[in-house]
């Protein structure tokens, strides 16, 4: 941890002092008026703007080891399959198998790796998706078609005879809904906050069967003429019309919500990104890569049937290219001479294979009224040099080369 800070920064520690207000009064040398040094060195391409949660400097600090030594176990060997919805379209699956257990199941599998099957609602009939996972992996992000749905998963493998064998079955998980409810029924209830839950629960316990939610229990009690309940609601439904509904719903649309999903993290990050963008567009990309794409890539990369069976050490490698961005939703964006379709929030993304070669994807955005435009000349090249026995990692066969012809 201890080190010479000036070496770490790669420059003389005094060089920036002028920018902050003058020389340190330490030597007999005549002090240079700070005004003369002003501008000699700027803060460079470091971050600027308002702060950010947990930032201790422009860069992450070097770390002093503290706490417990030792490593966490790779796995506990419970064989449990954990399935958790991460958002309306992605599930996270993890299987707790030790290295020996993995090895054993891989050897029993005709494909030499495990398979995760995802079912909607119940484990019956055709799986919603079937993912052949990497022989050494213990987790997978899985894309699912529907928000507001119940999913379950099975971990297992196919035997040589094509027979499915289950290693573990997950509990159900619910993907959050990503649309407004079609149920527009209205039920108002009165619940004074001064009445403690304990009192209320005591009250309803005597008269209503168990496992009825509190508000329903109050309603039932009231219907049966029970005295001593909070005054019933005085909201008259006839005062609320479809016109009211429309006027209010126009105030908030989910598109607007999606464009500014900003909580404790993104806010300052967005402002920072904007400032960085002004300085160097290249610096932006590191903040912008949605992590779900790594999941997307990995979950597409395996339904191709078996992995090549190898013994001993092996290495497969491949590369893909993702182009993504955003503009005003009503703008026109062209890649090459092809107009691309934007999502409703103005974002777009394309995924390509990236074989060896050189590729150019000029991108131009033009505002809806045609008065403003921005362009970017994206150019990529790949040149692979193999040393030793290196295989080509399987890739989604639907992916095409990066070319304007393939952005439709």
């Amino acid at each position, binding site marked *: 941890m201890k080190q010479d800070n000036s070496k770490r920064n790669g420059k003389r520690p005094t060089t920036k002092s002028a*920018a902050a207000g003058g020389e340190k009064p330490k030597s007999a040398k005549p002090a240079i008026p700070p005004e003369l040094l002003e501008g000699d060195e700027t803060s460079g391409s470091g971050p600027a703007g*308002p702060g950010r949660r947990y930032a201790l*400097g422009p860069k992450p600090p070097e770390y002093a080891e503290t706490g417990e030594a030792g490593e966490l176990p790779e796995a506990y060997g419970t064989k449990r399959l954990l399935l*958790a919805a991460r958002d309306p379209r992605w599930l996270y699956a993890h299987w707790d198998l030790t290295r020996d257990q993995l090895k054993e199941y891989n050897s029993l599998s005709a494909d030499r790796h495990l398979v995760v099957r995802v079912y909607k609602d119940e484990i019956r009939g055709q799986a919603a998706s079937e993912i052949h996972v990497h022989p050494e992996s213990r987790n997978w992000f899985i894309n699912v078609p529907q928000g507001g749905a119940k999913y379950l998963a099975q971990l297992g493998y196919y035997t040589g005879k094509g027979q499915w064998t289950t290693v573990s079955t997950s509990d159900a998980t619910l993907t959050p809904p990503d649309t407004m409810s079609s149920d527009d029924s209205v039920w108002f209830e009165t619940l004074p906050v001064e009445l403690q839950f304990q009192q209320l629960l005591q009250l309803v316990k005597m008269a209503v069967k168990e496992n009825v939610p509190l508000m329903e229990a109050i309603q039932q009690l009231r219907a049966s003429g029970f005295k001593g309940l909070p005054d019933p609601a005085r909201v008259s439904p006839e005062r609320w019309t479809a016109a009211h509904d429309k006027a209010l719903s126009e105030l908030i649309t*989910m598109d607007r919500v999606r464009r500014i999903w900003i909580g404790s993290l993104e806010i300052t990050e967005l402002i920072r*990104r904007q400032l960085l963008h002004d300085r160097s567009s290249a610096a932006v990309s590191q903040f912008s890569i949605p992590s779900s794409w790594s999941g997307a890539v990995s979950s597409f990369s395996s339904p191709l049937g078996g992995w090549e069976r190898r013994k001993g050490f092996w290495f497969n490698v491949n590369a893909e290219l993702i182009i993504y961005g955003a503009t005003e939703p009503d703008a026109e964006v062209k890649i090459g001479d092809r107009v691309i379709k934007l999502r409703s929030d103005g974002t777009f993304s394309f995924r390509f294979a990236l074989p060896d070669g050189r590729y150019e994807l000029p991108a131009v955005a033009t505002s809806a009224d045609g008065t403003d435009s921005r362009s970017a000349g994206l150019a990529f090249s790949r040149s692979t040099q193999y040393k030793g026995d290196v295989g080509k990692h399987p890739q989604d066969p639907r992916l095409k080369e990066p070319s304007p012809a393939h952005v439709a």
Partner: protein
Amino acid sequence: MQGYLCLVLHGHLPFVRHPEHPRFLEENWLFEGITESYLPLIEVMDGWLRDGMDTRLTITLSPTLCSMLLDPLLQERYQRHLNGLLELVEKELLRTYWDKQFKPLAEMYHRRFHSLRNTYESYGRNVVGAFRKFQELGKLEIITTAATHALLPLLATHPPAIRAQILVARDHYRTCFGVDPRGIWLPECAYTEGVELVLQEAGIRWFVTDTHGILHATPRPRYGVFAPVFTPNGIAAFGRDLDSARQVWSKQEGYPGDLRYRDFYRDIGFDLDYDYVRPYMPIEGQRTFTGIKYHAITGEGEKRIYDRQAALHTAAEHAGHFLGERINQMQHLAGIMDRPPVVLSPYDAELFGHWWYEGPEFLDYFIRKTVYDQNVIELSTPWEYLQKNPTQQVATPSASSWGEEGYWKVWLNDKNEWIYPHLHVAQERMTTLVEKNPVPGELQTRALRQAGRELLLAQSSDWPFILRTGTSPDYARQRVKTHLLRFISLHEQLASTKIDEPWLKRVESLDNIFPDIDYRYWARVRTKSP
């Protein structure tokens, strides 16, 4: 009055306390929070009180934050930190003596740090007690959050884990504020169905979801986010208002990014000679922020020197703009709705002052203008609103968070997913330990309590957040690992009944949060409904 406005500040920091080191870099999170956000907020509220203003504000003080603010070791270290800042700024007064631009700024910091030290000492170093005073005077509603700010939906596979997070927080709130919490900030605004069952058990009456948590509720709420809904078991859920969020945060319209405001990153801790700032750095050989910053955000080109008067003028303009927008919004809503709308605007408390230096002044100007200059908006708290408006629609909110894209992606992705399988096993083991030790001896009780503390600390949403954002990833990784390893050791010791008392004593002294923790909360209970 045409509608209610509830400003909610969410004050939270993870539990960082390292008695094993004389100084520790990440303890600065707390020190910077106190200097730049919590004490300035207290000073602003004291000003409202002094001027006889009838104000309302809601603030979360997370159990981890309260624990640190009340911890004698951290109080001592904060006092040392503040004294160090004063010493440094006195050197700055000399260093900038002949400089017309920097000297007034050094003087500003000198006055500021002195004032903060007076405030800190006048409250007997008890920041929690200062906030409590405002609650007891009816000006502030203090709410709690999950014990260590765990992202509750990702614990939903094991309901006792959620129950322990909430009930430990409730108990801790009682020790800090002498009453039960009425509302809760669900960490990261993250809600999933089932959380409300534990809230009811804890006697909590309201929580906040992000906008789509209400908009996607079932049935569809009539008033959108402009009225709360009651969950079927009677907890009020308020939705975050979008317009007020955007005005503070959006990159196009957001206030904190104004080029006249103080830049967060240009700090003399990085700009000046290392030997000069070295005595004020927590770690030898490593620079960090001091809090003395002389530049404005500026934008393109050479950084301009911070102009305090211009920045304050901007804050006043922004406060006026924010109020004007709220009045327009409220009048528009009142014209549509058949009841007074409520607009709930939540922000991180550390935004005001720490990330956005002029934030406390913005808040001060905004509240003063609201109290004195208009009669369309009534400042309120969710509790007061519910007292006045006990009739609401019943609906089940939708699973949601205020993180990027609205769900759990920030806390569950390829950078941090490795945490959850360990938590999953540890949570179930904790429940098994509790159930297998119905009548533990004294030493077993201590070990069970410590296992609960280690599990809670490992569940903190801050660690996966930091791993994702990369601000201090090695530290976050090490913290998760340390608490899980300590939990694993305790689990082994309890299972074998050979408890290493000297080791346990050391770990108790390190992770000393929640001294009265009730480990029985991890036992399985019959699902309570109603």
